[in-house]
């Protein structure tokens, strides 16, 4: 009896909280809302250290924070959320830490694909960006399975950057552009004509900026409006360097597991203050190109 009453009380509270949240988002949406938010989830290990728990628990707390933040973002109508989960540089850490992170990732990917998860609730499409061949076999397979099974979802997009660095992404785009160029030249030879752009005076324009952008992992995704790096660090750490020309870079002080609803609302308010300037820059740059 007691627990039943407790359950319905907490359900009611949860319902009221959700309603209040939606009202707040409604008021927020009077101003411009971001379409794409990127997060650098920094501070899990420091969180674990400050709470004197094992490092793995810091990452678990980080994952909990991630699911809440995703929920809030999608409730607000943010269509694209990207997170920096694991950098190529992080492979240089202690092997047992890397292994436990990989295990955690696989476990969480499997959880996300279950029926009752947030992915199915919002019909989320999941992307994994990065050099996936660097991942261990089970994680890579789980990631590919997640991408395949959500590929046809029409809801918001959740992109996870794993085994990723921006310079690696750009280098990969250069490789792909070369392959595409080679393919076009071969077709040209087969059709009996030479590709003009390979001649000496056009050597700078063999590959254009548009060609490169077509081969980035983010080609079907708009540029981030906001990039939030928690724990107050000011670096981008090789994350989306190409795509953040007009992104508002924010670095709130809380550690990632502490990043909560009010921090997200504050981030949106900060973005809304600066939106007119960024939008003006974006449109004038588009006009020039």
């Amino acid at each position, binding site marked *: 009896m007691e627990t039943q009453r407790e359950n319905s009380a907490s359900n009611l509270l949860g319902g009221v909280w959700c309603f209040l949240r939606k009202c707040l988002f409604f008021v927020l949406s009077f101003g411009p809302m971001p379409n794409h938010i990127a997060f650098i989830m920094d501070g899990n*290990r420091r969180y674990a250290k400050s709470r004197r728990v094992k490092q793995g628990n810091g990452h678990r707390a980080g994952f909990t924070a991630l699911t809440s933040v995703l929920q809030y973002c999608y409730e607000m109508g943010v269509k694209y959320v990207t997170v920096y989960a694991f950098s190529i540089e992080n492979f240089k850490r202690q092997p047992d830490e890397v292994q436990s992170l990989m295990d955690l990732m696989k476990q969480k990917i499997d959880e996300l694909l279950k029926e009752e998860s947030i992915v199915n609730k919002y019909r989320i499409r999941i992307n994994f960006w990065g050099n996936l061949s660097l991942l261990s076999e089970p994680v890579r397979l789980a990631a590919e399975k997640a991408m395949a099974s959500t590929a046809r979802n029409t809801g918001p997009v959740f992109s996870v950057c794993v085994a990723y660095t921006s310079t690696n992404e750009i280098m990969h785009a250069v490789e792909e552009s070369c392959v595409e160029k080679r393919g076009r030249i071969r077709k040209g030879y087969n059709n009996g004509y030479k590709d003009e752009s390979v001649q000496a005076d056009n050597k700078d324009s063999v590959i254009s900026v548009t060609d490169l952008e077509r081969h980035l992992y983010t080609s079907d995704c708009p540029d981030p409006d906001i990039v939030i790096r928690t724990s107050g660090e*000011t670096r981008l750490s090789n994350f989306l360097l190409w795509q953040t020309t007009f992104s508002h870079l924010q670095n709130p002080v809380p550690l990632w597991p502490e990043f909560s609803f009010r921090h997200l609302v504050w981030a949106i308010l900060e973005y809304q203050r600066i939106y007119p300037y960024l939008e003006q820059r974006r449109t004038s740059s588009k006009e020039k190109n």
Partner: protein
Amino acid sequence: MDLSDEIARVLIPPLQRVQSSKILRFTLGFFWCLLHLPVSIVHLGSYLIKQLLYYMISSGLLQKYQNLQLDKLRYLAIVVESEEAKNTTKIKQLLSWLSSIGVKYVTLYDMEGVLKKSVETDLKSSENPSVADGNAVASVHQERMTVELLSFSDGKGAVAKAASFLCLQYLEGDSVGYNKMEPVFTETDVTNALKAVGHGGPDPDLLLVYGPARCHLGFPAWRIRYTEIVHMGSLRSMKYGAVVKAIYDFSKKHQNYENMPQFVYEHF
């Protein structure tokens, strides 16, 4: 969760109808302004505290800011909002502050290339002897400080040129067009290609952004992988104390990482 969805389902549609009504839209706008009020108050408070701190730093009241350790700061970059970059006096003043602090290498960037036109001609016409022009990059030696001038075309455009360079190299080894090998490049290849096409500058350790927003505005992506990015406010209201504080904070942070290899302190 079901209960909340029910409540939302019942109440949100009328709220959406609200949007079409002028009076109720006005009310919504009022609440939105109310929501922004705490943010504005915090910004104002933080601005006042910073102005006080900068004044104390400039007048030498705070001892610890007097001797800056510059050994970790080899390359400094400055991003300026193009409209503000037209104010050449402020730019020159900033450069002279940096020179007096002892910074050896400064990269100035603005999206539209305003700085390239104004600063370069200015520095050329003054008594400084050597001016070196690279493709889209001008290097001017001012006293003991090297100033590099960049614009948007030195970012994505430069990478495209480097990519073209690598692609041509790859295709030249593939003369008949039927070579089976896939192109395999490394990041070092791209770095070397950037140097080869005249866009190989050093990676800045610290980037100061002068403008309304903390935004790198297209600074060459290849070079800001691990650069600390600090927002300084508008160029019009720039303060010497702010520059000193930014450099001091940078040197303090990197002192803690002195004995660690560079990427180990990347937390997640």
